[in-house]
């Protein structure tokens, strides 16, 4: 990617505080930072305090069962530098617990709550880990890769069995359904 995009001094200062941290510009206004999970809260604090990254755009969670990890991505935007930092950390899938950043960014409250019910990641210190969307769902966290939505559906629901006249007629003539959609899905 294009490394030549220069870091703003403040940003440089913040990033230099941490070791074991890799960063690269994925585009002019997008900086990807990979860092150890324990360093994240401190970095966000500095980003917000010193570099003016006031807006937590989102927290995304990605499930990597093969690595036994959850990847948490914190997207923070600076209204002053007009630049977005995506901080990537990995936390072990089990027990799947991490620290809340609610005290830095209030919107984190919602995103953490969302990740908690969708992936089952618990955020310590988050004001509210209660279910929001899935209040009446007692299955596993659906966004985990091992949860098979289609399987669940086929266990719990029935489908229409259409018997239109034209089909009856065709079957009388020896034709009929050859391939159902579920047989050929790529």
């Amino acid at each position, binding site marked *: 990617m294009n490394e030549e995009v220069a870091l703003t001094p403040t940003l440089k200062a913040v990033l230099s505080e941490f070791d074991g941290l890799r960063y690269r510009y994925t585009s002019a206004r997008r900086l990807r930072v990979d860092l150890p999970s324990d360093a994240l809260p401190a970095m966000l604090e500095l980003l917000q305090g010193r570099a003016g990254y006031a807006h937590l755009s989102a927290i995304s969670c990605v499930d990597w069962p093969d690595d036994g990890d959850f990847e948490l991505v914190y997207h923070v935007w600076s209204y002053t530098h007009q630049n977005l930092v995506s901080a990537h950390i990995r936390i072990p899938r089990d027990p799947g617990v991490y620290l809340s950043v609610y005290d830095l960014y209030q919107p984190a409250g919602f995103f953490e709550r969302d990740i908690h019910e969708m992936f089952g990641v618990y955020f310590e210190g988050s004001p509210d880990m209660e279910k929001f969307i899935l209040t009446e769902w007692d299955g596993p966290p659906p966004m985990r890769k091992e949860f098979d939505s289609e399987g669940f559906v086929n266990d719990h629901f029935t489908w*229409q069995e*259409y*018997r*239109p*006249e*034209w*089909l009856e007629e*065709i079957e009388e*003539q*020896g*034709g*009929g*359904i*050859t*391939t*159902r*959609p*579920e047989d*050929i*899905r*790529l």
Partner: protein
Amino acid sequence: MSDIDHKARGSLLNPIKNWQFFGRKPVTESLDPRPASLNYRGFHLNDWEKCIGCSTCQKVCDNAAITMVRIPGLPDDPVKGVRNERPAIDYGRCCWCALCVDLCPTGSISLSREYVHTCTEEEIGSYFVLPDPNGIHGEYYGLGWSKSEDADLVDLERQSMAESAPEVRIGTFDEIVGGFDPQQAIVEASRCVQCGMCHDSCPTHMNAPEYIRAIWKGDLEEAVREIYRTNPFSHVCGRVCTHRCEDACSVGRRGDPVAIRWLKRYAMDNVDHERVRAIAAEGKAEYISGKRVAVVGAGPAGLTAAFDLARKGHEVTVFEGLDKAGGMPRYGIPEYRLPYDKLDRDIDVIQAVGVKIQYNTWIGRDITMAQLQSEYDAVVLALGLQLGRSTRIPASDHGQVRKAVTLLRQITAGESFDLPRNAVVIGGGNVAMDIARSVARLQKQQYGEVRVTVTALEDRAHFLADPAEVREALEEGIAIHDARGPREVVLDAGGGLAGLTTWRVKSIFDEQGRFAPTYDEADERTFEADMVIEAIGQMADTDLLGEELTERLEWIRGRLKVDETGRTSEAWLWAAGDMVNGPDVVHAVRDGHRVAAGIDEYLTATEAARA
């Protein structure tokens, strides 16, 4: 805009102003549904004439809303790439995204401008619709979203294939076609819509969709595995197959068909030969049946049969008259189309599964059919067609009138013959092209110039040869005269060969469709030549069966009569390949599988009977 002041009280006149609204045109529409826009995405239409039942729409449908239904009475012809299936849409699933329209290879499916459908619980069947050209209520509301340049998602253009230039290739027997590089192969493979028309049309039903997808995924070994499920002559078919698959390919409906043959070749060329052997041997039976099978003729049919039988645990010996295996692909097809080392690989793989080949052994000369019958549990005849037919025109018995197949064999074997400075070839098939282009190469090498003329009965539009062959032949400086029938071979005073006189062909077949050419004798033309080559067809050399056996066997118009398993009227004797169903390599492979299956069944049955 000027900022709006929330303290502004608005004018006192406002109430009066508002009377103006009575003057405005009302916005309300009539109760009856308005006609929808020109590219509206309403209910489906399907042009049954265009639709070929390839089920691509079904695959791209993100809502699993499309079911394929077989409809009796519609054309159903694998060779033409047509199925009697049509898509039925479940309006309890459809979201009218029109991806089915954009990806339809034929452009048959489209959306109409009809959008009103209601029904009660009892009539819910009406949500499952078989679209036709009229619309779901039998009333045509006009065409909505349909195939357009803009929205078409089918990739109609084939990846270009590297070919050596005519002036370069004419001087050598090196292979002409370069083959795909990995990038091209993946792109070409990605054009496939997985409809399976190729599989249906292929005589030996190769799993083309599977191996194409494997190539696209970059898993070439998986591709080879899929290929070997149905075809041990993979290198050969990757190069010189008559590719009916590509004629049936649904992408070829509006554009270039997927280059299935070249993809197969790509997979075969790019997997290490040792691995190919290992993959081909997968699933070989552990046990030894103790049964012995003899195969006469090491061509595609014979070796395929041998390959199958060996994999099933039988002991197979192949008897080959010449000193190399391969049959027509080796002795009939010139090297610039099929390099011998590739053919050798196929044969090596077949031998690797335990097939023994005994060279230079002619049936009737070195070993008799009777011996085979007594020493083996079953015998396969796969003689092929190695004798050229003669035109029987005056003086066609002259020494300088030669048969194409014979010459081709000599060229392959490296035997020397007096190369003509000026040759005339009779025939418009692939063999004619092969011999013409081979002689042309030799001429180029020895005399530095090409003087070959091809005269064919058919006019250019109905040539039997593969169009690409004809094109390349012309590029290489070969003169092709179509619709000319041979009249007589002209000899000079010294009895040497002077040329060939021809008449223009008026018609080839009579009303009954029998072969009975008529000529316009006024239009006579003579082509100078010091050699005339007949390439008008081949026949099997059945003399070597021995009179007594020939008597016992049943024949139909000079061909052996066989049942659906390829078995002759003799219980122990099977026949396969060109001698049974005419010249075509992939057909021969299919035939090999057929007799192998028949024989295996027979042998296991006798085994069971004994036990």
